[in-house]
């Protein structure tokens, strides 16, 4: 029996060197920044200070003071809230995905919950949880988890029904079905849900910080605006942009790691056709 085992490396792609990627990614933001920089140079408007001013102020305001009082609390809140949203979203999604009748029973509720813009719940959340940390966390988790729930349901359902017989006949335990079948099967969908969730989590975080107790980038921006520190307000926005970008980079690195099999398969299938 002839055995032609393809080598592992054959499916690897030739990678573009990282600095080229960086260059390719940064030309647009850098040119935009240059345009703004030049255009705002002579600005005397209180609301649109020169970009140079804003950048000069960033190092003064944010390093290290606001970093500790605002950036770190935001980061902690977001990481914790997003992690909880992912865990809860997957747990609920797997259960609803596996038990079709349960999903049908709660669908009106989930559809309604999804139709209400999350921030509309802010007054209610403040009523029950006050304006402190628990309110902020509850809001982030509760609003950000829905895309993950819905995508997990879909992902779990995408499991080939033929595998049910395989799992039954080989007596795969419930825990192993979850860990080794449903979770990996749903992982690509979970990630595309999580990507949306992350953006929502950042938006909700900013919103609750603007209305809640001091601390956080959202609070910083609102506070600066209300006390007419307009340049500071702009620095907050720049920091927020960098914050979001960094999160996305981390997220993508994680996705690449976890979905390695899927990426490899996608490439493999492309290579064949």
């Amino acid at each position: 029996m002839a055995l032609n085992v393809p080598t592992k490396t054959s499916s690897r792609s030739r990678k573009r060197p990282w600095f080229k990627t960086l260059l390719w990614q940064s030309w647009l933001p850098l040119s935009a920044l240059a345009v703004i920089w030049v255009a705002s140079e002579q600005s005397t408007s209180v609301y649109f200070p020169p970009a140079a001013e804003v950048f000069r102020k960033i190092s003064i305001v944010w390093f290290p003071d606001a970093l500790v009082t605002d950036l770190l609390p935001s980061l902690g809140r977001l990481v914790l809230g997003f992690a909880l949203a992912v865990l809860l979203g997957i747990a609920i999604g797997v259960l609803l995905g596996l038990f079709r009748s349960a999903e049908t029973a709660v669908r009106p509720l989930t559809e309604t919950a999804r139709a209400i813009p999350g921030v509309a719940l802010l007054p209610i959340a403040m009523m029950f949880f006050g304006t402190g940390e628990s309110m902020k966390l509850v809001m982030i988790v509760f609003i950000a988890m829905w895309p993950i729930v819905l995508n997990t349901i879909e992902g779990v359902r995408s499991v080939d029904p033929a595998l049910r017989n395989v799992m039954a006949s080989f007596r795969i335990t419930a825990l192993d079905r979850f860990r080794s079948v449903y979770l990996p099967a749903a992982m690509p969908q979970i990630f595309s849900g999580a990507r949306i969730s992350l953006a929502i989590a950042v938006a909700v975080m900013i919103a609750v910080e603007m209305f809640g107790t001091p601390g956080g980038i959202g609070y910083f921006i609102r506070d600066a605006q209300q006390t007419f520190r307009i340049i500071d307000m702009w620095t907050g926005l720049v920091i927020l942009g960098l914050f979001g970008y960094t999160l996305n980079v981390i997220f993508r690195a994680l996705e690449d790691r976890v979905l390695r099999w899927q990426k490899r398969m996608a490439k493999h299938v492309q290579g064949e056709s």
Partner: protein
Amino acid sequence: MSSNNGKNTSSDRPIFEISGFSFAYGETKILENVNFAANAGEFVCIVGPSGAGKTTLLQCLAGLRQPTGGEIRFKGEQVTAPPAELAVVFQDYSRSLMPWLSALQNIALPLKSAGQGKKQREAKALAALEEVGLAAAADLYPWELSGGMQQRVAIARALAYEPALVIMDEPFASVDAQTRADLEDLTLRIKDHLGITVVLVTHDIDEAVYLSDRVVALSGRPATVVDVVDVNLGNQRDQITTKERPEFAGLRSRLYRLIRRPEQQAPAAPAAAEIH
């Protein structure tokens, strides 16, 4: 439908017995009053026209479905759920392996569920891969393997499970002729080597005669066992010489007539010994 296979090497203790078995999907009777048994160490093939209910019968034997009448006993116990000492090789290899697990992980997963430690199950999975000649593919994913290789991984998964009985539902139906012959010989060799019992469903009467100690022919609507044919071609089978023997041709024709009879509506018989 008696069978006295005195010439076979197998012991005469039945490993499973199907008695008075019937099955219906709702109102539609598929199988009725099916009776047969297999002894430990036997190779039994089930043949029958498409739609006869062969897959359904195997699913009941594997504990994946419950009969609507009669009973199935495996090692003396009534089958109500998939038994631990029974493994299945499914027809559609491309859908029976998990694409997100490597060949080794696919084979090791059932062992993990059985509570075996990581070292032990990986050693067993690797040994099973060696048995099917695929040790080099341990870390590859199913979609990086050819169809025949995937089916060998599925066979290895069944072997690593250390079953007393392996059930195979048209396992070689979707591979090319050469691979098919290779896999047939592989299955025979493994069966001898490990002393397991094999029940295999096939459309191909040549394949059934070549592999079996006994062939169970299903036919009719609802289907029942129309004959059980002993195949006394010895333990050493060879793709060329065994198939040249006059006994082989005789058994082949006998089975062919047997199964074709109820489906006489078709004007001409196909040239190949395959029923569709």
